[in-house]
């Protein structure tokens, strides 16, 4: 994520501390403050249904951010995201069932398992690129899901593993509002981690690898190490997302981690806008809320009652259609649309920016 250039309105950064700051102008501070106030006030104003939606969005955002790190910034395509979510969820499930582990053990354990799996998922990236890498992550996803299914069958949890809500200071965590704040904290932390990671040497190395791998290697960037690092960090975060998902739902089952889930996350990065953390967030919001919007829209139509029974199929079709529309017409996603709008206003009345001549 590149820092925007200094503003033309006379705002300049005059020391290093300012240069490192994330929020600069007064306008940015005010907007951020308002946004935080809105986020904090939301659970007290919204219905439980909406609270649940918000929690789902936060969960999706964590997974989406980690996928964006891997695919949008490090340039390593991964279709196996659901497998990593499953790994995190199953770690929680297995540890809970076998040894009754509390959440402050299972979450780090999930992160660890995620990291280790990340190494496994990342090994092909040392030899493969592009389509072949995507295919290898897909294959690994199937293997992970198969292992999860094996565990379920062997241990007799044919319908899935139920998990008790985590105990904090002796009280079970069941309130929607409490979950909202906890997930908000996790999502915000993930965002902060991502932002800072991208501003660091690691982020720059990833950018170089994504742009031209051979040249990055020639410049002395340890490409293999950074690729694996991308996979490890991304997978660890994803596994934690999966673990949180398990606790939130109270239930782990291998059917939830289908190929469609992987594709949903990839869709989040595309619809949001590849190569942008804001895109990851926007994509997460869009894809999570999409089925509910479709359902609401369907119920609002006059003759739609007979389709209500096939809501699942309608969701599928609509989702596929929207994804196609974005891929064909706006490959830069929602962020791309936003930039186009910005450019229109900034360049007006000119239509295009000439290459270089007119700047003299």
């Amino acid at each position: 994520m590149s820092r925007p250039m200094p503003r033309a309105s006379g705002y300049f950064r005059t020391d290093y501390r300012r240069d490192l700051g994330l929020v600069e102008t007064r306008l940015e501070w005010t907007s951020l403050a308002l946004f935080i106030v809105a986020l904090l006030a939301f659970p007290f104003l919204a219905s439980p249904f909406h609270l649940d939606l918000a929690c789902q969005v936060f969960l999706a955002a964590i997974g989406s951010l980690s996928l964006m790190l891997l695919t949008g910034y490090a340039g390593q395509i991964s279709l196996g995201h659901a497998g990593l979510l499953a790994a995190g969820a199953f770690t929680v499930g297995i540890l809970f069932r076998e040894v009754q582990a509390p959440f402050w053990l299972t979450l780090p354990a999930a992160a660890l398992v995620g990291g280790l799996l990340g190494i496994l998922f990342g090994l092909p990236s040392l030899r493969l690129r592009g389509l072949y890498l995507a295919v290898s992550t897909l294959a690994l996803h199937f293997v992970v899901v198969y292992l999860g299914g094996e565990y379920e069958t062997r241990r007799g949890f044919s319908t899935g593993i139920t998990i008790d809500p985590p105990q904090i200071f002796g009280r079970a965590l069941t309130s929607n509002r409490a979950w909202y704040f906890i997930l908000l904290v996790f999502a915000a932390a993930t965002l902060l981690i991502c932002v800072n990671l991208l501003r660091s040497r690691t982020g720059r190395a990833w950018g170089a690898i994504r742009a031209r791998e051979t040249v990055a290697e020639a410049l002395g960037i340890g490409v293999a190490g950074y690729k694996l690092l991308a996979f490890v960090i991304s997978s660890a975060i994803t596994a934690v997302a999966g673990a949180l998902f398990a606790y939130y739902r109270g239930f782990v089952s291998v059917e939830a981690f289908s190929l469609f889930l992987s594709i949903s996350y990839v869709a989040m990065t595309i619809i949001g806008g590849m190569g942008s953390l804001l895109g990851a967030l926007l994509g997460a919001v869009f894809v999570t809320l999409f089925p509910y919007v479709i359902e609401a829209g369907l119920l609002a139509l006059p003759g739609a009652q007979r389709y209500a029974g096939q809501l699942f199929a309608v969701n599928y079709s609509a989702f596929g259609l929207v994804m196609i529309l974005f891929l064909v017409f706006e490959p830069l996603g929602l962020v791309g649309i936003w930039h186009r709008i910005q450019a229109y206003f900034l360049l007006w009345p000119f239509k295009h920016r000439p290459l270089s001549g007119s700047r003299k």
Partner: protein
Amino acid sequence: MQLIVNIVVLAAIYALISCGYVLVYRVSRVLNLAHGELMMLGAYLLLSTAGLFAGNPMAAIAVALLLSLTVGILVYVLLMRKMTGEMVLAAVLTTVALGILLRGLVVLVWSAQQQNPAQPLAFTNAAIELPGGGRISIFAGILVLVTAATYAVVFAFLRFGRWGVRMRAAGQNPLLAAQRGVNLHAIYALAWSLSTLTGSMAGMLIALDSGLDSTMVIIGLKAFPAALVGGLDSLLGALAGSLIVAAAEVLAIHYIDPLLSDVVPFLVLIAMLAVRPWGLFGTREELDRV
């Protein structure tokens, strides 16, 4: 003996499906991940035409094949054409999205129940006794023959004449191919329609053999490791890969664990990717000369 029969039948299934993957990949470097869904669509089309031409099975099959050819051309003209010359990965994701769309549409139009086109067509799927003690159902046998015939025809088409080379050239560098006079849209449309046709044939035969429901897509998905193991742009590779993957799967189910059936193709895939990513007979891509 029965094991060998099973391997041959499964290999034929994978080979016929892989033919479609190879055709599209060779010409555009796109892995058509909607192939499984297109296959399923072909089978459902047969179901409909079987209902329409209840007394005339040949007409039903012919019309269904014609329809699937049209579907292939439409998929290219309406959708993939817009991705011509764009990044390959975007095109692959477009096929994934197309697959999702088709899956939803199929359930909406035809419902998710299991059905069998053999019923309206009044076909019976008897089992034939083979010398050596194995048994094979009629439709499985037909499938093997159709696969062999298809491969013979496509081989001949690609070998004699320059279009085999031109397809590979278009796959490697579409811009240069266009600049050397190759009509990209025509060659892509051809590849997509042939690919959908062979996929639909596979779908129809599988449906006639063992019924049709929306899980057929999984077979389509399991076939692409076969294509990859052999080399995504090589027809010969698709045959070899299908045999290897089918053998591995049947033997694993028989000797180790029946649950492995869905995973084995992907394990073979991982093994091949680790050793020789471009497959047994594929063109070695990504020469690292800067």
